[in-house]
């Protein structure tokens, strides 16, 4: 099949200033939602936000003229706990409604703390780590053998790189020459009990492991929209592509950055105000 590249289809380059502005708004919206529930995953959403934003706004192809947009390419957030990033972006696109997000994690709503297949925009149910890469490998292969030019984007956490199933999938995707599979790793160096690099110090760096499995790969600052965009568009044809995005967990709010407690916690009223006050556009 023809492995058409986004490069060929997306002649318009990324507007990095617009991306920064969008992400500032998304961080504010996530904080706003945090005031409605006691537990959610703010920090994991903040670390992957720029990557998810670039994928949705600048990489995924849309059916021209449809509103809300119909995406031709697919997106799965394998680190399901980061799905607030996806929710606020889909709200922005009108795929999810304001009411959907206002009712997040409540009996009146349909959005939970992990994506649920069947809800608009959710192409797979994730939450248990190590599943997204396998599902996306199957999706990418199905598109390939049905001769459809469709890309599959999957965002992974560095914690789930510890799952054997992720590597089973990576082995398979390389064998199958899935040039339509693009994985983006949110390398924020944190998992439940602390730093991933402390849990598995011999495992790093990731990039050479991925390349050794036969993937094309690159590493960038995961908060730099232009770098993400350029790296994905410079990928080789005929091989799956893996982007290591170095990120900061909780990026954008000083007291949340690299603080494990903010994996789950919701800010108090004072903390919320402080977060709003200090949020600004982020470029790296």
């Amino acid at each position, binding site marked *: 099949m023809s492995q058409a590249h986004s490069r060929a289809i997306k002649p318009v380059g990324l507007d990095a200033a617009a991306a920064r502005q969008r992400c500032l708004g998304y961080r504010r919206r996530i904080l706003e939602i945090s005031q409605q529930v006691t537990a959610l995953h703010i920090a994991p959403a903040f670390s992957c936000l720029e990557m998810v934003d670039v994928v949705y706004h600048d990489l995924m192809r849309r059916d021209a003229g449809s509103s809300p947009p119909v995406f031709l390419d697919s997106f799965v957030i394998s680190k399901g706990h980061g799905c607030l990033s996806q929710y606020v972006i889909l709200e922005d696109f009108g795929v999810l409604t304001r009411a959907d997000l206002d009712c997040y994690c409540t009996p009146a709503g349909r959005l939970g703390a992990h994506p649920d297949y069947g809800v608009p925009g959710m192409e797979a149910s994730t939450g248990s780590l190590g*599943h997204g890469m396998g*599902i996306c490998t*199957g999706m990418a292969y*199905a598109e390939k053998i049905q001769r459809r030019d469709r890309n599959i984007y999957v965002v992974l956490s560095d914690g789930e790189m510890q799952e054997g*199933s992720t590597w089973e*999938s990576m082995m*398979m995707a390389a064998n199958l020459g899935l040039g339509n599979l693009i994985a983006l790793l949110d390398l924020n160096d944190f998992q439940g009990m602390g730093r991933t690099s402390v849990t598995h110090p011999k495992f790093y760096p990731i990039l050479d492991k991925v390349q050794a499995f036969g993937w094309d790969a690159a590493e960038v600052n995961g908060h730099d929209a232009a770098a993400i965009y350029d790296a994905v568009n410079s990928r080789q044809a005929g091989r799956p592509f893996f982007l290591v995005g170095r990120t900061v967990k909780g990026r954008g709010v000083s007291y949340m950055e690299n603080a494990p407690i903010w994996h789950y916690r919701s800010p108090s009223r004072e903390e919320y105000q402080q977060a709003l006050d200090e949020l600004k556009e982020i470029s790296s």
Partner: protein
Amino acid sequence: MFAETFYEAGQTNPRLCAVVADISPAGAMTKFSQAFPERFINTGVAEQIMIGMCAGMALRGLRPFAYTIATFTLFRPFEFVRDDLCYHNLPVTIVGIGGGVTYSTLGSTHHAQEDIAVASALPNMAVIAPCDPAETRAATLWCVDQERGPVYMRLGKAGEPDLTSQAEAPFEFGKIRYLQRGRDVCIIGYGPILKLGKELAAKFEAHGRSVSLISAHTLKPLDVDGITEALNAHRQVVVIEEMSPHGGLGAQVKQIAWDIRASCRLDAFSLRDAFIHNYGSHKDLLAAHGLDLETLSAQLGLAA
């Protein structure tokens, strides 16, 4: 018979795919892999991606069948079966070959003694276990066309004897199937062990009893109405199954019997709740679990 039927169906249904995990593609599976190389994927010794890929392929319009030794289709990648297939409610068929203790010389790592209970516990999952080649063919054709969701199909191995050619009705998903109909005793089972059921029926007949023999090939959803009718229509009901005593057909029939206040005698025979360290033929292994004609006859008062 599964492989022949699947190959045949694959010729007219371009969405059918086989995703196998290092199982020797004997017989017709080889034909399928050669005829449709893109639709035959071997993930190697990697069962999680076998199931994960099936999910992704089904989400993008294909109709994959995961195929390997029963224990490796279900137990090894269990959470992938649960989350990727059942939670998403995808029309993927898991074909577990060598269910029960079919692999009688390979030890308990290769036995699927509790597969029916485990698969049945999953929401959205359908569970079927045909008893002979013809029923396997019919069940496979049903799986090929079904859109209801995930299915676990437990198979034995090749070469099972015919049991269903005299059946009064064809295979119908979700319905029990009378292989013969009598008035006094009803023997209910599923899968290849119905061969033992047929021998037991002959033994009852030699004692002057008129015997029904039922293939309860669909374990989930179980045909509660059909089982109810069988419990009411016979004075004695015997359930035999090549599965753990927990969560299988015997337990369910007893539950139905209680619910309807059945008055028949009811006995249920199964594999023991134990790993056993015996080897030999399939028949030897079943006998080690107490599933042989002599033991059953003695327990049912049919001595000599």
